[in-house]
C-alpha cells in the first residue's frame, strides 16, 4: 500500500498530483508539495542514512534546512548531488535518491562494526594514534581513514546544468517569509519602499503552514504583496551570507524542483543584493536533547513531527512519545493525535505547567518530572526508556515508533551574527539572541519573539522602521495582522540526560556528550578548541540542532554557565550553497572574455594556430600543408621576413594618446630615457621602470605634435601601464596638465618587415615618400593606406627593414588584404607570434621573458638608456647596491654547441657545475641554423665565448651551449636602416 502514513485531508500537498519517485531503487509515490522526507515518511520509510563515523542507522530528524541525518545522493549520473537534505528536497516526478555512507545495504552496513571500536574512536583519536610505525600513517592508516570518512559520493562528471549570477538593489530586504517576514514586507511595502522578500522554502508562510486557522491571512497577505509593484517575492531563495556594506548573498533554486532545467533556464541563480535596510526574519531551529540513543530512526524534533502532520499531512509514527521541556512543544502531541497517532506518553522534566494541565485534561498521559533515558530498537525505534529526572539510570521502556523531542528553540542568528551583531544570552529562552546592530534588524522567532500574533507584530514594527530608515517616512496605513494563541517557548534547562550509552550532541559527525567531556579533560576547554577537537558542529548542518547542546555539555564540565562558554563564531554559509551557483556563468570557456583583434577573421581564414596572450587570441603561426611540423611553419615565416617580406598583426600592443602642455615633462618622468628632446614626426624606444628600479615595460613612443605623443606598451602591460601613468599623474604630479586616452582598440596595426618591405609599403601607402632618406628609421607620418586614413611608423622588432602601419580598426581587414596583394609578387608571408619571437631572439631584443619583473636596465644591457639628470620613476632605488651589483645575471646570447640539440627556456646555466643563470628565451635560428637563446648569466659579458651547460634536470637534459653576444645578428643595424 502506498503512502500508508498519509492523512486523508489537510495539509499543503496536492493529492491530485501523484509523483513517482524512488529511494535506493525502490519505487514510491508522493504528492506535489512534498519534500523527499515527507514523501518517505508517508511511505513508511524510516531508515534513510548512516552516520559519519560509527555508521549508526539514522532517520529523518527535522523538517527543514537544519537536518543533520537524512542526507541522500539525489538524482543520478552527472546530476548526482551528494549530501542532499531530504527535508528540503522538493519532490518531483521521477526523483531518484540513494542512501549514502554505507558499505553493503542501508539495513546491513558492515561498517557499523566501528561502533564496537568506539572506545578507541572517540574525539581526536587520530591525533594520538596512527604514529607507529612511523611510515604507516601515509601508507596504511590514512588511505583507510580517507575511504571511511566523507559522506556522499560526487559524480565526478561535468555538471550538465548552467548557472547565472544576478544583481539587485532594494530599500528593504526581508529574509524569511514566515509570519514575521510577511508582516515586515507588508509594512515596508505599504510604506512605498522597494522590498525584496526571500524565502528558502518553496512555500511562503513558515509556521503559518502548520495552522489551518492562519491560512486566510497567509494567502491574503501573499496576494497583497504580489500586487504591490515595489515588492519582489522570491521563494526557493536562500540567503547564505551577510556581507560588508549590507550586501546579502542568496541562491535561488530555479529548477531544482524539476527533473531538469527547462531549455535556456539555469539550475540556480546566485543573487548579490544590496539593501538599504535588512530585516532578518529567519525563524528558529528546534534543538535536540542529548540522551542515550537519541539518534535512532524514529527520534525526531517535535516541531518537525508537527510539521509533517499539519503541513504535509503525514503521520510520522503510529505510537508516539513526546519528550518536551516547554509548553509550546505540546502542540506536537495535539497535531499527531489529530493525525491519528497514539500518544503513548508525554515526558516532561518539569513538575507542572499550563500545557501539562491542558494535556492531562485532554486525556494525554503526562509523566512529569521524568526524562527519556534511552531508546530501544534496531534500525528503527521500538521503544522509549523513561526514568525520573536526575536518576542517572536507564528506565522502563514504553513501546513507541516515534519519539518527539524538544530541548527548546535556537533563534537562527547566523545572518545577524555575520553582520557583526553581538549575541546575548537569554535566560528564559536559554538561547543566544541577537543584540543591537546598526546593520540589520531581527524580527520574530529569530530574536526570540515566538507565537503567531507576537511575531507578526514584531515583523510589522521592524518592517515599518526599516522603511522609515530607508527614507520612506510617510506613515504607512496599519497593515492587517493575524491573531494567534501565545505559545510559551521557555524551556526547562535540560541539555543532557546522563545515562549509559551514546548520547549525541552532533548527530552527523557522531559527536557524543562524552566526546565533549573528553575534549575538556584533555584541555580543549574553550568552545572553539572543543569544536575543532571533536568536530562538533562542523558537519553540513553546522550544528543547527545540537551546537548549543554541545556547548552546554562543555559548560557543565567547566562548571560555568552556557552564556560564558558561548558559541563558535558563525561564518558563511548559513546553509551549504552549490558550487556552480557561486561560480555563476563565467566558467569554462567563458571564465574570461576572449579579446580579438580586428584581423581575427583574416587569421582564421589563413588557418592560424591560436595562442593565448592574456585575454587576447593571437596567431602563433600559419601552418601550410607542406610544413613538416610547427617548427617548419615558424621557420618558413621567419625566413620570409629575413629574405623577402612578412606581415604580422601587432594590434594587441597597448596604445595611449598622451596630450597636454606638460606631456613631454610627464613622459620624461615616467620613462627612464628622455622624450622632451624628441622631434615631431619621430619615434623613440622607451624604457619604463617601476619605482623600485626594476624594468616595468618598453615600447616606442612617437611625438605627433609639440604636446601630443603616442605611447605604445607591450601587449601584457597595456593595462598596468595605463594605471601606473594615471596613478602618478593623480598622486605625485597632480599639477601637470596631461590627459591620457587609451586608443588600443581604435587603432589596428600591422608590421611589414623584410628586405622587400619598402616595396610593399610603397605600393600600399599614399601621401608619403618612403625612400630611406625621406622616411628614415624611426620616422612617423600620417598617410593613407589603400585609400583609408593611416599612420606609418618606421620601426623594427625583427631586425629587418620594417614599417608599422596603423589604421582605424574597422579598416584593418581592407589594408591587410591590400598588403598581402601588394606583397604577393615579393613572396610575402603572414607571420605569427612564434616567428616574431624567433626573429627578436636572433636580433637580441628583449621581451616579456626578459622583462620578467626581476631584471634591471643594466641586467638587460640597457643601462646606457637611463638618463643622468632629472627625476624619473625608479631612478633613485635603481641605485641600491643589490641592483647595481656587477655580479648580477646579465643578458647574453646562447647557442647550442650541437645545432641539433634543443635548448629550452627554463633551463639553468651551469658554469663549472655552479648554477649561474637561466635561459629566458629559446628558439631555432634561421640565419645560422641551430638552437639559440637569450639568457641571464652572472658575469655574462666576461663569459662570452665560453662553453657552459644548459641544465634541465626536469627533462633529463644537459646541453653544452656557447655564450655569445645577444646582438649577433646585424650588430650595426645596417638592415633596419637600409
Amino acid at each position, binding site marked *: 500500500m502506498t503512502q500508508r502514513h498519509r492523512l486523508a485531508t489537510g495539509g499543503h500537498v496536492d493529492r491530485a498530483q501523484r509523483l513517482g519517485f524512488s529511494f535506493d531503487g525502490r519505487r514510491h509515490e508522493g504528492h506535489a508539495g512534498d519534500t523527499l522526507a515527507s514523501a518517505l515518511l508517508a511511505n513508511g520509510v524510516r531508515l534513510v542514512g548512516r552516520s559519519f563515523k560509527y555508521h549508526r542507522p539514522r532517520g529523518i530528524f527535522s523538517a527543514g534546512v537544519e537536518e543533520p541525518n537524512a542526507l541522500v545522493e539525489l538524482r543520478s549520473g552527472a546530476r548526482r548531488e551528494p549530501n542532499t537534505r531530504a527535508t528540503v528536497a522538493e519532490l518531483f516526478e521521477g526523483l531518484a535518491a540513494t542512501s549514502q555512507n554505507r558499505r553493503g545495504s542501508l539495513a546491513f552496513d558492515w561498517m557499523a562494526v566501528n561502533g564496537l571500536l568506539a572506545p578507541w574512536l572517540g574525539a581526536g583519536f587520530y591525533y594520538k594514534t596512527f604514529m607507529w610505525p612511523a611510515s604507516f600513517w601515509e601508507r596504511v592508516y590514512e588511505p583507510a581513514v580517507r575511504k571511511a570518512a566523507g559522506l556522499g559520493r560526487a559524480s565526478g562528471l561535468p555538471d550538465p546544468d548552467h548557472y547565472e549570477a544576478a544583481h539587485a538593489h532594494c530599500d528593504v530586504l526581508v529574509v524569511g517569509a514566515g509570519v514575521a517576514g510577511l508582516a515586515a514586507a507588508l509594512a515596508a511595502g505599504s510604506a512605498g519602499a522597494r522590498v525584496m522578500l526571500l524565502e528558502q522554502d518553496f512555500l511562503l508562510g513558515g509556521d503559518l503552514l502548520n495552522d489551518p486557522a492562519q491560512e486566510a491571512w497567509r494567502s491574503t497577505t501573499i496576494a497583497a504583496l504580489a500586487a504591490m509593484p515595489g515588492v519582489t517575492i522570491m521563494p526557493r531563495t536562500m540567503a547564505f551570507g551577510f556581507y560588508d556594506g549590507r550586501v546579502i548573498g542568496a541562491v535561488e533554486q530555479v529548477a531544482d524542483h524539476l527533473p531538469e532545467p527547462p531549455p535556456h533556464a539555469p539550475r540556480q541563480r546566485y543573487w548579490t543584493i544590496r539593501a538599504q535596510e535588512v530585516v532578518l526574519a529567519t525563524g528558529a531551529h528546534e534543538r535536540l536533547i542529548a540522551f542515550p540513543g537519541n539518534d535512532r530512526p524514529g527520534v525526531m524534533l517535535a516541531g518537525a513531527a508537527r510539521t509533517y502532520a499539519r503541513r504535509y499531512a503525514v503521520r510520522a509514527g503510529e505510537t508516539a512519545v513526546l519528550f518536551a521541556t516547554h509548553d509550546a512543544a505540546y502542540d506536537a502531541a495535539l497535531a499527531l493525535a489529530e493525525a491519528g497517532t497514539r500518544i503513548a506518553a508525554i515526558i516532561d522534566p518539569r513538575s507542572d505547567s499550563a500545557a501539562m494541565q491542558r494535556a492531562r485534561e485532554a486525556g494525554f498521559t503526562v509523566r512529569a518530572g521524568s526524562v527519556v533515558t534511552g531508546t530501544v530498537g534496531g534500525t528503527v525505534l521500538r521503544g522509549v526508556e523513561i526514568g525520573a529526572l536526575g536518576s542517572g539510570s536507564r528506565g522502563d521502556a514504553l513501546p513507541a515508533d516515534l519519539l518527539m523531542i524538544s530541548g527548546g528553540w535556537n533563534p537562527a542568528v547566523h545572518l545577524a551574527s555575520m553582520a557583526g551583531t553581538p549575541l546575548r544570552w537569554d535566560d528564559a529562552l536559554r538561547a543566544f539572541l541577537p543584540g543591537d546592530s546598526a546593520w540589520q534588524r531581527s524580527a520574530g522567532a529569530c530574536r526570540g519573539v515566538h507565537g503567531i500574533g507576537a511575531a507578526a507584530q514584531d515583523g510589522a514594527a521592524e518592517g515599518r522602521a526599516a522603511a522609515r530608515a530607508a527614507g520612506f517616512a510617510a506613515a504607512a496605513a496599519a497593515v492587517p495582522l493575524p491573531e494567534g494563541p501565545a505559545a510559551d517557548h521557555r524551556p526547562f534547562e535540560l541539555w543532557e540526560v546522563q545515562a549509559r550509552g551514546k548520547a549525541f550532541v552532533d548527530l552527523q559527525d557522531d559527536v557524543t556528550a562524552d566526546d565533549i567531556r573528553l575534549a575538556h579533560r584533555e584541555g580543549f576547554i574553550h568552545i572553539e578548541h572543543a569544536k575543532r577537537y571533536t568536530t562538533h558542529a562542523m558537519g553540513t548542518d553546522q550544528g543547527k540542532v545540537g551546537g548549543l547542546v554541545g556547548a552546554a555539555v562543555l559548560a557543565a564540565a567547566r562548571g560555568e554557565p552556557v552564556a560564558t562558554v558561548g558559541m563558535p563564531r558563525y561564518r558563511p554559509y548559513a546553509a551549504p550553497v552549490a558550487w556552480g551557483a557561486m561560480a555563476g556563468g563565467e566558467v569554462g570557456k567563458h571564465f574570461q572574455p576572449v579579446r580579438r583583434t580586428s584581423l581575427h577573421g583574416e587569421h582564421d581564414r589563413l588557418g592560424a594556430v591560436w595562442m593565448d596572450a592574456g585575454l587576447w587570441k593571437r596567431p602563433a603561426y600559419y601552418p601550410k600543408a607542406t610544413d613538416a611540423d610547427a617548427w617548419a611553419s615558424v621557420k618558413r615565416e621567419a625566413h620570409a621576413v629575413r629574405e623577402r617580406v612578412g606581415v604580422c598583426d601587432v594590434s594587441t600592443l597597448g596604445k595611449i594618446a598622451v596630450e597636454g602642455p606638460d606631456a613631454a615633462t610627464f613622459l620624461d618622468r615616467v620613462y627612464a630615457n628622455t622624450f622632451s628632446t624628441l622631434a615631431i614626426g619621430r619615434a623613440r624606444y622607451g624604457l619604463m621602470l617601476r619605482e623600485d628600479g626594476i624594468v616595468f615595460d618598453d615600447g616606442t613612443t612617437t611625438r605627433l605634435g609639440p604636446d601630443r605623443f603616442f605611447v605604445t606598451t607591450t601587449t601584457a602591460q597595456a593595462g598596468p601601464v595605463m*594605471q601606473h601613468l594615471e596613478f602618478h599623474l593623480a*598622486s605625485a604630479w597632480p599639477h601637470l596638465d596631461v590627459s591620457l586616452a587609451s586608443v588600443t582598440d581604435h587603432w589596428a596595426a600591422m608590421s611589414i618587415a623584410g628586405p622587400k618591405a619598402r616595396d610593399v609599403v610603397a605600393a600600399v601607402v599614399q601621401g608619403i615618400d618612403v625612400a630611406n632618406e625621406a622616411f628614415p628609421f624611426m620616422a612617423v607620418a600620417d598617410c593613407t593606406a589603400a585609400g583609408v586614413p593611416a599612420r606609418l611608423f618606421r620601426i623594427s622588432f625583427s631586425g629587418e627593414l620594417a614599417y608599422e602601419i596603423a589604421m582605424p580598426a574597422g579598416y584593418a581587414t581592407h589594408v591587410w588584404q591590400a598588403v598581402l596583394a601588394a606583397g604577393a609578387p615579393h613572396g610575402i608571408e603572414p607571420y605569427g607570434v612564434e616567428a616574431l619571437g624567433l626573429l627578436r631572439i636572433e636580433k637580441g631584443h628583449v621581451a616579456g621573458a626578459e622583462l620578467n619583473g626581476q631584471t634591471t636596465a643594466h641586467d638587460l644591457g640597457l643601462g646606457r638608456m637611463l638618463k643622468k639628470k632629472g627625476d624619473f620613476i625608479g631612478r633613485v632605488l635603481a641605485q*641600491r647596491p643589490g641592483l647595481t651589483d656587477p655580479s648580477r645575471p646579465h643578458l647574453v646570447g646562447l647557442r647550442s654547441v650541437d645545432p641539433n640539440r634543443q635548448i629550452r627556456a627554463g633551463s639553468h646555466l651551469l658554469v663549472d657545475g655552479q648554477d649561474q643563470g637561466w635561459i629566458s628565451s629559446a628558439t631555432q635560428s634561421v640565419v645560422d641554423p641551430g638552437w639559440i637563446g637569450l639568457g641571464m648569466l652572472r658575469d655574462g659579458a666576461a663569459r662570452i665565448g665560453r662553453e657552459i651547460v644548459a641544465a634541465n634536470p626536469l627533462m633529463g637534459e644537459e646541453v653544452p651551449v656557447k655564450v655569445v653576444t645577444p646582438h649577433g645578428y646585424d650588430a650595426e643595424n645596417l638592415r633596419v636602416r637600409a
Partner: protein
Amino acid sequence: MLMIPCPHCGARDEVEFTYRGDATVVRPAADAGIEAFHDYLYLRRNPRGWQVEWWQHNGGCRAFLKVLRHTVTHEVRGVVTATEALEVPPA
C-alpha cells in the same frame, strides 16, 4: 562587499575599484635619496583602524580617490578626490 561612495558616481561595488596603497605616503623629492624612497615605497604604518587609502575607480570613472576606511570593520567613512585632504579620526 565594500560599497564605496565615489564622489562622482555614487556608491558602487568594490569590484569597480582597485586598492592602490596607503595614501598618506608621499613620493619624495627627486633628490631625497635612497632612504626616503625606501620609506615611501616599502614602510607602512599598516594601522589596525582608520586608514586613508588610494583607490582607483577604474571600473567606473577611473578617478583616483582617497578613501577613509577602517581596516577591521571595513566601514568607509569618507571619500574625496585626489587633491583633497581627509582627516583621520582618532582610533
